[in-house]
């Protein structure tokens, strides 16, 4: 149990995917303009990351390792993740229109993101088991959601702030992201891993 808690704290705060590992930066910059879309994206990411983490573990453990095809990991993971997400999207669209409305357009957007592939590959690199992979995926997504929502809330306020002309737009956004990253780096040493 402590181990899972450690993985969670480690992925959410210490080795945050966006601010420390610098994965998944495009949705971080792209959909953080308003809190509403950021929340939708955060939910979709949580869903996709957990799912793809588990699916890629299964593919690696039961298909690639027995056949000695570890060098095909990247392409296999991309394939598996894309299919699993697409399949889930179809099922969700049919069974729960409400959930589809919330996640809908964000699901395909996040599927091919580097954070998703990053989670799958890091799982293998760190030798995680099945449950550990799931927790790792969920933790990574929770960390992503946390900073995405925080960042979106900040950007909504920055729009109304009196920013010097030279810094307006993307410049102040990048500066804010950098400061946030610095703040999160402060967590390093909290948990080893």
């Amino acid at each position, binding site marked *: 149990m402590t181990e899972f808690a450690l993985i969670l704290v480690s992925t959410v705060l210490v080795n945050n995917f966006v601010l420390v590992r610098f994965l998944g930066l495009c949705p971080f910059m792209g959909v953080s303009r308003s809190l509403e879309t950021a929340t939708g994206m955060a939910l979709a990411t949580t869903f996709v990351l957990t799912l793809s983490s588990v699916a890629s573990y299964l593919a690696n453990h039961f298909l690639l390792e027995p*056949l000695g095809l570890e060098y095909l990991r990247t392409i296999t993971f991309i*394939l598996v993740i894309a299919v699993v997400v697409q399949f889930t999207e179809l099922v969700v669209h049919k*069974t729960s229109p409400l959930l589809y409305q919330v996640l809908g357009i964000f699901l395909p957007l996040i599927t091919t993101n580097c954070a998703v592939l990053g989670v799958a590959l890091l799982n293998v690199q760190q030798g995680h088991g099945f449950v550990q992979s799931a927790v790792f995926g969920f933790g990574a997504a929770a960390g992503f959601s946390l900073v995405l929502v925080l960042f979106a809330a900040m950007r909504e306020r920055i729009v109304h702030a009196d920013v010097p002309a030279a810094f307006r737009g993307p410049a102040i956004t990048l500066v804010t992201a950098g400061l946030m990253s610095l703040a999160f780096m402060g967590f390093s040493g909290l948990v080893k891993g």
Partner: protein
Amino acid sequence: MVTAMLVLGIMSGLFGLVLSYASKRFKVEGDPVADQINDLLPQTQCGQCNYAGCRPYAEAIAAGKADINQCPPGGEETIRTLADLLDMDPKPLNQEHGQHKEKLVAVIIEPVCIGCTLCIQACPVDAILGAPKQMHTVIESECTGCELCVPPCPVDCIDMVPLQKDIFSWKWPFPDSAPDSRNGDTAIHGAAGDHGA
């Protein structure tokens, strides 16, 4: 090497099958009434009905929020078919939304065009081709004749001209306007009967 190719090939094939099955099995039917209405609308995307395009207007009709007589490009013909579909009485076109005209296409007078791209932004169906400071032109087969590109043009170089009937756009006249097509009818029925037997 061979194993790798086999594994990837089989896996991709399997996934493809699963997805194609899933897309059939979990197919989501849209609003069938709105679909049918949308099929009857002329798809000019002109917005004269006060909706963003033909599809939103079709959805509004299906939801009972809009009347069937708000489509000037479709004219009486569309109103009649819509009335048939929805079991309503046909009514005259609502003049507030504009008047029915014959089908037009936009033509850019190319020597006058200054290449400002304003008409490209206005076109709802991407039928105008061009780049900044380059002459623009209209892809005639894509143009729906919605006239949305006319007001933004700063040099008034867009003309709306009636569509020339050619071998591709010509259609049989509707039966009530061409009552004596009996000979053609019998021939077709005869052929169909032979085929069935």
